């Protein structure tokens, strides 16, 4: 029966996905203490951001970016750095966010 073949294919794919997940998860578990160490290192150095995009201040340190950095042109605008391909504007630069946030976050309206 062909539907047995289909069921076999789907089951194989699900099994493969599960195996990949188990493998990746087990790998992570084995390095759990390492993750805690990374967190402690970051805490000790007072690091505030991930070192992913080094091309500009506001991509290297999005959480420290001032109110006039590029991301605020308008939320959802395509960033002119390629990093904007998977990051949106930082929370404090989104109009909806700053309107509801503490006075410390007030910025001049664009």
């Amino acid at each position, binding site marked *: 029966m062909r539907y047995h073949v289909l069921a076999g294919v789907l089951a194989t794919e699900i099994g493969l996905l599960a195996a990949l997940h188990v493998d990746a998860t087990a790998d992570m578990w084995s390095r759990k203490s390492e993750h805690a160490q990374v967190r402690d290192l*970051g805490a000790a150095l007072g690091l505030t951001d991930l*070192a992913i995009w*080094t091309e500009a201040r506001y991509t290297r340190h999005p959480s420290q970016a001032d109110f006039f950095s590029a991301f605020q042109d308008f939320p959802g605008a395509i960033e002119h750095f390629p990093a904007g391909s998977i990051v949106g504007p930082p929370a404090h630069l989104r109009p909806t966010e700053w309107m509801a946030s503490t006075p410390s976050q007030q910025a001049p309206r664009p």
Partner: protein
Amino acid sequence: MTRAQFGKHLKILEFALASMLRRRMKNAGIVVVFSAVVFLLSSIVFLTSALRAEAMATLEGAPELIVQRTVAGRHALIPVDYAEVIAALPGVGSVQPRYWGYYYDIYSDANYTLIGVPDEGPGSAGQLPLHLVEGDMITPGRTEVCVIGAGVARARSARIGSIVSLRNSRGWMQEYEVVGILAGASRLLTNDLILLPERDLKTLLGLPDDRATDLLVEVYNPNEVANISRKLLERLPQARPISHAEITRTYDTLFDWRGGLLLAMSLGAVAAFMILAWDKATGLSAEERREIGILKAIGWETSDILELKLWEGAALAITAFLTGITAGYAHVFHSGAALLRPVLQGWSTLFPSFDLAPRVEPYELGVLFLLTVAPYIAATIVPAWKAAITDPDRVMRAS
């Protein structure tokens, strides 16, 4: 549902598969394209949600409160004596000036982040867990030494004992001996770092004595951060407090696969796929239309034909969806999103490789499923339905 009824559905599925196997090249082509679209989208979804999770986990230890100063809308150096004003606020423990900055290296075309390591207090060698430092940490009193991130080490081909020379604010080259390298395991956080003794950093960057980059504020009760920020702003209008909660919030919303270039690219792919699906489905070939007529004429009900088409669409779409998801998962969590790397990297010279903790958000998978499988099945069924509600006698007249 009785066994016979169940058997009926299985038989229609069986026929659907037999029917699809007749056009195996075409259907295989659709599976390939469909899988590729799901692969691309799921890679982005997996990567962004894993990055978000990673950021939340590693930045859990980020400072409770940082105070910047902004002048004319720009981040400016903060007077060290702000520290006294802030320290006087109730609920505030120590206030420590931090010295850090950026450095553009013409030899590797890369931007580094330079951080000053104080002799004592937060961030000093005594406070650091040393598991992730190969070699030594900068100990109090040492000068002209540095500890570098894995990315810097690679960019400068530096090892422990190597010399890293940086141009100081007067234009002279200043040499620093590498005493330690931050382990690769921490690269998502430390890839581009150069840690220098605080005094060396101030000289190198030419920072005035009475200014720091920002202030690290110790707060006794994290719930008081918002209150302290407000009071602080009343006294120091140029200050800009950044709380731990804000950092967390930033990273919670930062990685956003719905925004930007990748989406624009994948939208193109999705659109092309939708056109393909639409064309395939709406342009029911004369052959398929004829077959629907035949089935109708030999006693299939409209609902049977819709079920047939549902099975055809579902078998193809679900196979392709699972293939795409599996490939996307392997791509992101087993090969570090290698194919997305050129796009993600952009102009970041020191781009860390990803070794992310696997993370799957059922909600996002659900959205992905609805965005790909559902429209495909709909595009298969609707035209079949249109063809199936015609009178069965048409087939008698067709030549």
